[in-house]
C-alpha cells in the first residue's frame, strides 16, 4: 500500500503494520480507558498468547489459533461477569491467569518434548517478518474498528458515560459491549505478531491517555488518539531501522515518553492565576 512512498519492502511492511495496529488499538483504547477496563488489554493479549501456544502445540496455524482463543475468551467475559455477579475487572483477572497458565504450561511442555519453541516472538513481536496477508488482515480490522465506532457511536458514548444510566434509558448496552469485546479480541490477536503479547497494552492504553490530557470531548479523542499513535509509531519504525534498534519496544518507550510530556503540558491541569 505504501510502496510508492517507501522503497524498502521490509520497512514498508513494518510501517504499514504499525499504522494499522495504531489505528485499531488506539481507537479501541479510547473506549477501554474510559470504561476502566484497562485490564481487558492484557487479558486479551495473553489469551492470544495462549491461543498461539495451543496452535503451535497442535501444529496448526498459530495466528488462527490465537484469534480463535481470544474470541472465545472475549465471549466468556460478559456472561461470566453477569453470571458470577463479579466486576468485569475481577473476571478479567481470573481469565488472565488462566490464559497465562495455559501458555506457560504448553511452552514448557513443548520444551520438555524437545520441540524447542521460542516464545520470544509471541511475547515481544517481530514487525520485520510479516506476511502481506497479515498486513491486509490488520487493515481489515482497522476498518472494522472505524465502522464499529461510526455505526454505534451514540451507544458507545452512552456506555462510556455510565453503563447503568445507559441501561436504564432503554439502550441495548449488552449487544454493543459484546461486539466491542469481539473486536478487541480480533485486534489484539492480529497485533500479537507485531508488538507482542506484553507490549500490546501500551497501544491500547497510552494513546488514549495522551489524547485525554488535551481533549474535552469524545469525538476529538477518537481522532487524536489514533493520530498520536500513528505518528509516534511511524517515527519509531524509522528510528528503529535508522539506528538498528528493536522496533516494538522503541515505539512503546516513545509512546510512554509522549504520555509523560502530555501530562506535563496538559491544559486540564492548569490552575488559573487570575483574580477576576
Amino acid at each position: 500500500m505504501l510502496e510508492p512512498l517507501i522503497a524498502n519492502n521490509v520497512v514498508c511492511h513494518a510501517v504499514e503494520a504499525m499504522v494499522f495496529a495504531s489505528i485499531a488499538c488506539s481507537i479501541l483504547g479510547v473506549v477501554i480507558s474510559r470504561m476502566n477496563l484497562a485490564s481487558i488489554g492484557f487479558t486479551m493479549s495473553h489469551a492470544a498468547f495462549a491461543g498461539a501456544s495451543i496452535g503451535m502445540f497442535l501444529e496448526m496455524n498459530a495466528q488462527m489459533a490465537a484469534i480463535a482463543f481470544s474470541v472465545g475468551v472475549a465471549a466468556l467475559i460478559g456472561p461470566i461477569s453477569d453470571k458470577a455477579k463479579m466486576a468485569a475487572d475481577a473476571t478479567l483477572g481470573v481469565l488472565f491467569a488462566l490464559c497465562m497458565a495455559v501458555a506457560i504450561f504448553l511452552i514448557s511442555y513443548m520444551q520438555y518434548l524437545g520441540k524447542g519453541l521460542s516464545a520470544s516472538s509471541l511475547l515481544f513481536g517481530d514487525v520485520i517478518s510479516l506476511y502481506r496477508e497479515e498486513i491486509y488482515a490488520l487493515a481489515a480490522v482497522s476498518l472494522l474498528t472505524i465502522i464499529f465506532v461510526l455505526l454505534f457511536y451514540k451507544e458507545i458514548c452512552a456506555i462510556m458515560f455510565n453503563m447503568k444510566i445507559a441501561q436504564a434509558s432503554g439502550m441495548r448496552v449488552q449487544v454493543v459491549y459484546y461486539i466491542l469485546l469481539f473486536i478487541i479480541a480480533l485486534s489484539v490477536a492480529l497485533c500479537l505478531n507485531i508488538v507482542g503479547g506484553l507490549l500490546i497494552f501500551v497501544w491500547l492504553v497510552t494513546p488514549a491517555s495522551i489524547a485525554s490530557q488535551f481533549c474535552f470531548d469524545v469525538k476529538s479523542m477518537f481522532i487524536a488518539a489514533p493520530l498520536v499513535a500513528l505518528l509516534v509509531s511511524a517515527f519509531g519504525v524509522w528510528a528503529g531501522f535508522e539506528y538498528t534498534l528493536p522496533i516494538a519496544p522503541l515505539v512503546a518507550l516513545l509512546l510512554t515518553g509522549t504520555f509523560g510530556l502530555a501530562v506535563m503540558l496538559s491544559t486540564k491541569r492548569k490552575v488559573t492565576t487570575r483574580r477576576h
Partner: protein
Amino acid sequence: MLWELSIIELEGIYTAYEGDDKPIIKDLTLNIDRGEYVVIGGPNSAGKTTLLESINGLVKITHGRAAVCGFDVRRSGHDVRKKVGYVVQNFYFDPFTPFNTQQVVMMGRYGRLGLLKRPIEEDYKAAERAIRMVGIEDLAQKTIGTLSGGQQQKVMIAHNLAKEPEVLLLDEPFSNLDFSAREFLQAILLDLVKGGTPIVIVSHAFDGLPDIRIHLVVMNEGRITKDICCPARAVEDIVRKSSLRQ
C-alpha cells in the same frame, strides 16, 4: 400491550438478588395510575430503591405479575425502560468525563431511538426543551464532571425529561439540591403530574411536597406496610409513625 387500567400494576411480586437467600421484595402488590404523585417512604434497607428498579426491570422479578406502560416487565424490561425515566441515586462523574451537559441530556433520547438510528431534529428539540425546563441553559456547554453535585443532579433530571417518559421514577432526587432548587424541581414535577405523567419518588425529605393528594407507600423489610392517599402535609407524620411502629 397487555393491561390498560393502571400504568404500573404489580401483583404479588418477589425480587431477589443472586446469592441472597431471602428476597428483597416480598409479595408486593401496588397499582399506580396516570397523573399520580407517589411518594415511597420507609427506613433504610426497606427495599425502596429495589422497588423502583423492579418497576423498570433493572432488577429481576422472580415471582408475580408486573405490567408497566402495558408491557410485561419480566419479558420486556427493555421496552419498559424506553418509556420509563429513572433518576438514579448516588452518581459521580469525574472531572475528566468527556461529555458536556448538552450531550448528556441528549443521551436521554438514545433508548427511544434504538440501535443504529441517529438523532433527528425532534430529538434535539426535546433535549433543548428539557434543558430549558430545568433551567440549566448556562451549563449546556460545560463538562459534566466539572459541575457541582446539585448541578449534576439537575442535568440527570433533564436527561430523563428529554426522554419524555410515560412514568418518572426518582431516587432521592432532592439529596444534592438547595432549597430554591428543590422548589424549582417540585414545580417541574407538579407540571408533569398535571399533564398525566405519574411521578414515583423515593425520599427521606418530605418538606416542600406540592399541596396535592399524595399517593403514599410506606415500606419495611421488602413489604408495603401502608398504601394510602393523603394530603402532602400529613406524609412526614405518617411515615414517621409507621416506621416507629415497626
